[in-house]
């Protein structure tokens, strides 16, 4: 099945040439078949792509893995994105999600990491198998990518459907600290799968 992602906006940031490589680019896209929106940041051979996941998708995924309806609903409505982190630079890349910030309506918040989700569940609300599935389906809370490595994982921003927020990311690339912001990210809409 050929899927076309149509880039609708490209921003070239006024960031100097770092590490002798390209300046930062944020490309926004809309999947012409599903209508899902995406944001991809690229700089110096490193990229991070966020793709909306409809609450219906997430609800079905976690119910199939043993979460109760209420628990799956809670995850589904936590502004979930599929996330792809890729290191095609020639240096190691590392991050800690606890260093990242969600900027929304003048307030600053943190991502829903594996550890924060673990603290959410009440006794009997989620089986061990369900928690294992959630843990491993989320983007790792911290990671070090060597050149050529990449990861997929879900990220949760804990905001209502349709919310718009900026994401401030902190990365280390070859020992250099980078702080970058992707602005205008929109939480997936709570619509049914057509």
């Amino acid at each position: 099945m050929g899927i076309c992602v149509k880039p609708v906006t490209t921003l070239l940031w006024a960031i100097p040439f770092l590490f002798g490589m390209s300046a930062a680019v944020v490309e926004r896209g809309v999947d012409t078949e599903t209508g899902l929106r995406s944001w991809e940041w690229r700089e110096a051979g490193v990229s991070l792509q966020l793709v909306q996941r409809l609450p219906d998708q997430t609800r079905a995924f976690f119910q199939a893995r043993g979460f109760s309806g209420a628990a799956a609903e809670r995850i589904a409505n936590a502004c979930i994105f599929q996330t792809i982190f890729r290191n095609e630079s020639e240096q190691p890349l590392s991050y800690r999600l606890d260093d990242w910030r969600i900027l929304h309506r003048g307030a600053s918040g943190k991502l829903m990491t594996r550890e924060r989700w673990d603290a959410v569940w009440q006794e009997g609300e989620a089986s061990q198998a369900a928690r294992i599935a959630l843990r491993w389906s989320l983007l790792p809370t911290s990671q070090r990518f060597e050149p050529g490595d990449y990861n997929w994982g879900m990220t949760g921003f804990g905001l209502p459907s349709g919310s718009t927020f900026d994401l401030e990311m902190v990365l280390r690339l070859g020992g250099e600290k980078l702080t970058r912001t992707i602005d205008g990210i929109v939480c997936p809409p709570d619509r049914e799968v057509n």
Partner: protein
Amino acid sequence: MRGYLLAAVLLLSSLSSAAQQAGTGLTRLAEAPLAPDFSLLDVDGNVYRLSDYRGRVVIVNFWATWCPPCREEMPSMQRAWEQLRQEGILMIGINVGEDEDTIFQFTADYPVDFPLLMDSDSSVTRKWPVRGLPTTFVVDPTGRIVYQAIGSREWDDPALLAPVRALR
């Protein structure tokens, strides 16, 4: 039910659109930590203990059926296995947190015949330096982890396998 099926199709579509290409290369682990031993069952009930394979090179892949890049690399792992098994190199897939029925159904779509072991409570996975799926390690004949790959790879690429073969 119809909604769930559509959701699954939509999920796969959106993920396919996000997928680009496999990662590249293997990272040499300078400290070469001792590989944590394990004793796990495969889907047929056979026991596999890593320490039983001391003296051989072992590729250990951590994966799950729902993980798109894990699925993506399975066919190339099978192609690599068809070569490596004749060279005395073992390949093992350790499934994280799923049951034998789920894995059995998966192998109908992704036929592989290297051992798929079940780490149902993820206790083995937590002892290895795994943070995300898939992650693959190469264990040398002395039982040390000497290479690592985070994310999928084209495992039948001769350039990727050259350093693995050199460990024999």
